């Protein structure tokens, strides 16, 4: 079941069945209530989130504004995972139920280090996802 959900997430596009099973074994499901924070801007971050149900809003604190809502199949928290910096935004659930799959940074790094083909595919997809988010941002500001 989780493998089927992961198959619909662009980050894992191109992975084999075995790869998806490995990724699924790293995931921990978390349900968050509307209004509950997933992460807070400025905090240290060591988790990647895959939204499988509901919506998460991405909120910048200064000036306080919501920049985008992310729904099913989207990943978030990836910036801190890639660059090791603090969380760039606050993430808050806005609908019920909001369910995410959580992957810890160390598990993610180990998986990519131990399977460099998988690591290449996932990081290429991660770049494509960031590119898509930039395009969305550009279109939002037309």
């Amino acid at each position, binding site marked *: 079941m989780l493998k089927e959900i992961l198959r619909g997430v662009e980050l894992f596009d191109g992975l084999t069945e075995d790869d998806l099973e490995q990724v699924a074994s790293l995931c921990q499901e978390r349900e968050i209530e509307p209004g509950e924070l997933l992460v807070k801007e400025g905090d240290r971050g060591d988790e990647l989130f895959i939204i499988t149900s509901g919506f998460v809003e991405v909120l910048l604190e200064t000036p306080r504004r919501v920049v985008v*809502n992310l729904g099913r199949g989207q990943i978030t928290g990836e910036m801190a995972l890639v660059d090791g910096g603090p969380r760039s935004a606050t993430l808050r659930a806005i609908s019920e139920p909001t369910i995410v799959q959580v992957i810890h940074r160390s598990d993610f790094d180990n998986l990519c280090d131990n399977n460099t083909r998988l690591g290449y595919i996932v990081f290429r997809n991660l770049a494509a996802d960031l590119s898509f988010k930039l395009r969305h941002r550009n279109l939002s500001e037309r």
Partner: protein
Amino acid sequence: MAVYKISYVVIGSDHPGGIVNSSVRPQIGDQVKIGEQLFETIEVFELMPPRKDFHYIHVTCQPYNPK
């Protein structure tokens, strides 16, 4: 299994829009819920070429006002 990765941009409101995957290609006139709010699709175009099963779609929408 086609997956439509959709960028929703809202006009006529300060709503920030959203990004969400769907198994169905959006169409003009569709109603879509982003978070807890309902919108109406008024523009659809391909943002970039599809890659394998993934299609990248831009949608412009506006707050839904039933007539």
